[in-house]
């Protein structure tokens, strides 16, 4: 072999070795809401992602780095979200997409991920049929059916007559439908239903109707935030508790980050949800402590923070399993088999068939713990529970 050819071989070998040893940067596109009326929810996702990255950002194979790129979709603006996703995929060449508070935004992004083959992990967007829109979609958050349906079944054991009051938009309709089905199937009677417009600041007229109908229990659903507080206040202002009407709902009505604002009127409210900041398990205690340390003693993480946390955890898991060389189809295979027994909300996994989240649903009651209001977990009403809507609506 001549000197020239050995030099060539050496050069190629050197190039190959340096290629292997070169740092791998995995780009993750994070779309959330920083401005507009939805910024409170978007902020929760942002805090969750940043906290995870701060505490666990280095738990990667040697030479592999992660670069998060944050974008603002300004609210439930599907066209803006789609455009941002397009840019992230085409311009920044992200290998993962995550975040997304709003269902319409996720629904607009989904077909894009199918075409571009980019794995998309929803940290919040809960529309039941989104996983069917793209084979590269997986959800780590929740669906409303997961909490409202078992709540309906549980409630029918204690109460015979219920009245539903939900916010008038699609998640509200989903929650109402799920609860009604669960409640009726278990023998209960729905004596009335009301849908409150999203612009309403005052829930009194609707709660007054409830009072007139004299049910035993109200089922409520609002998007977490000031609507939840307003509905709670109306319940207490009209003294519905004294009139013997109990208030129950999905965890959105007593969401942890808002709970302190609701005051003592929230005491005794029972909800079913997949996460409570007051949960005693060690993984959660660690999260809450870290959250308070990073963002302020008075603040509590809500379920969206945990959604973001687990989404990032699943992405990191996929990166580790592939040693930084991320392939979309392998990633989806890893996602399908993902199991995490140590999430702050308890054991979770992904359903390989639907790519949706499988988790426990807990019955909680608002009590005072250490002078603060907390959603105390009483029992697990549904263990390793799959989204029931998909069970009822199997694709033909």
């Amino acid at each position, binding site marked *: 072999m001549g000197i020239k050819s050995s030099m060539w071989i050496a050069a190629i070998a050197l190039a190959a070795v340096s290629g292997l040893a070169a740092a791998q940067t995995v780009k993750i596109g994070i779309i959330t809401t920083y*401005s*507009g*009326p939805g*910024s*409170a929810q*978007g*902020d929760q996702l942002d805090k969750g992602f940043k906290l995870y990255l701060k505490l666990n950002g280095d738990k990667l194979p040697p030479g592999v780095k992660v670069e998060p790129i944050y974008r603002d979709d300004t609210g439930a603006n599907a066209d803006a979200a789609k455009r941002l996703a397009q840019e992230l995929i085409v311009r920044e060449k992200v290998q993962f997409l995550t975040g997304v508070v709003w269902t319409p935004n996720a629904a607009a992004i989904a077909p894009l991920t199918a075409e571009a083959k980019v794995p998309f992990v929803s940290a919040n967007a809960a529309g039941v049929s989104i996983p069917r829109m793209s084979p590269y979609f997986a959800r780590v958050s929740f669906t409303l059916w997961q909490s409202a349906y078992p709540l309906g079944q549980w409630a029918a054991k204690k109460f015979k007559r219920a009245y539903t009051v939900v916010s*008038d938009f699609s998640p509200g309709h989903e929650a109402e439908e799920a609860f009604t089905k669960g409640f009726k199937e278990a023998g209960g009677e729905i004596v009335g239903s*009301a*849908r*409150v*417009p999203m*612009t*309403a*600041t*005052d829930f*009194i*007229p*609707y709660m*007054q*109707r409830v*009072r*007139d109908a004299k049910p035993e229990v109200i089922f409520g659903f609002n998007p977490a*935030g*000031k609507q939840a*507080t*307003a509905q709670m*206040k109306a319940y207490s*202002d*009209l*003294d519905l508790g004294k009139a013997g009407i109990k208030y129950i709902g999905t965890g959105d009505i007593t969401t942890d*980050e*808002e709970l*302190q*604002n609701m*005051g003592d009127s929230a005491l005794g409210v029972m909800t079913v949800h997949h996460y409570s900041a007051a949960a005693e398990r060690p993984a959660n205690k660690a999260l809450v402590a870290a959250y308070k340390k990073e963002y302020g003693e008075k603040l509590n993480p809500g379920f969206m923070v945990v959604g973001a946390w687990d989404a990032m955890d699943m992405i990191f898991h996929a990166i580790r399993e592939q040693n930084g060389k991320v392939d979309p189809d392998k990633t989806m295979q890893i996602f399908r088999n993902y199991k995490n027994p140590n999430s702050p909300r308890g054991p979770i996994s992904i359903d390989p068939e639907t790519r949706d989240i499988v988790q426990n649903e807990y019955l909680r009651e608002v009590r005072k713990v250490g002078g603060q209001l907390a959603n105390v977990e009483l029992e697990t009403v549904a263990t390793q529970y799959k989204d029931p809507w998909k069970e009822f609506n199997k694709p033909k």
Partner: protein
Amino acid sequence: MQDLLSSLVSVAFHGLAYGMILYVISVGLSVTMGLMGFVNLAHGVFAMAGGYVMLSAMNSMGIPFPLALIAAFIAVALASMVLERLLYSRLYTAGELEQVLFTIGLIFMSVAVARLVYGTLPQPVHLPEYLKGQLHFLGRDFPAYRVFLIVFSVSIVGLLWFGVERTRWGAMVRAAVDFRAMAQSVGINTSRLFTLTFALGSGLAALGGALGAEIIAIQPTYPFEHLVFFLIVVAVGGLGSLRGPFVAALLIGVADTACKYWVPEVGAFFIFIATIVVLLWRPEGLFGKAA
């Protein structure tokens, strides 16, 4: 029948409280737009600021409720005077479009500042003990705070009307609203009048925002979300008038609440349909001056 009456009373009562808050916030806008001809879409910013000042004073500094309210009024009135002298006054001769652009720019900036300082979550409202709970009269329970709201707002309204009808300052304002050029030619210093009136209107907005924090949550996006309702109160009531927005706010508060109670499916539409009907019938508003 007894039950229906009882429910109606309850609905009317709550609607009244909501309407009063709307009025206290919006009356300043009516006067500003009527007096100065200035399209101040940023009016909600002053209401929001009042809410933030009062809640900060109470939550972080432990200042008692009445003092915090006064603090909100004074702080925002003073700040609005500064804004008026520095920025607003330059645009009195500009067209409406420029004023729209400017005030929307102001809203954007204040939303960002509110977010930076206070975060995105709605501010917690902790009412003083003596205003919590229920009051019992006429055989029913009424939330104490809403009773207080109604009584307090009515007294503010009374003071305001007295001030405008009976004082010299009020006469000057009325003159300037009716015929600015004439008012100037009889020697009324309209520029100082504008500043003072603007400050009063903004201060009232702040008071309304602070009082109403329990009903209309204080959040950075407040000025955008509720702008429509303030504008509706002023347009339906009539620009430049005090009585008009009062009636409009009461109607909106009570009728909107009653409508949501009786026919909840169309509850969200009522305000807008009512606005359309009133404005087509009387474009100048219920008590405005016909063009």
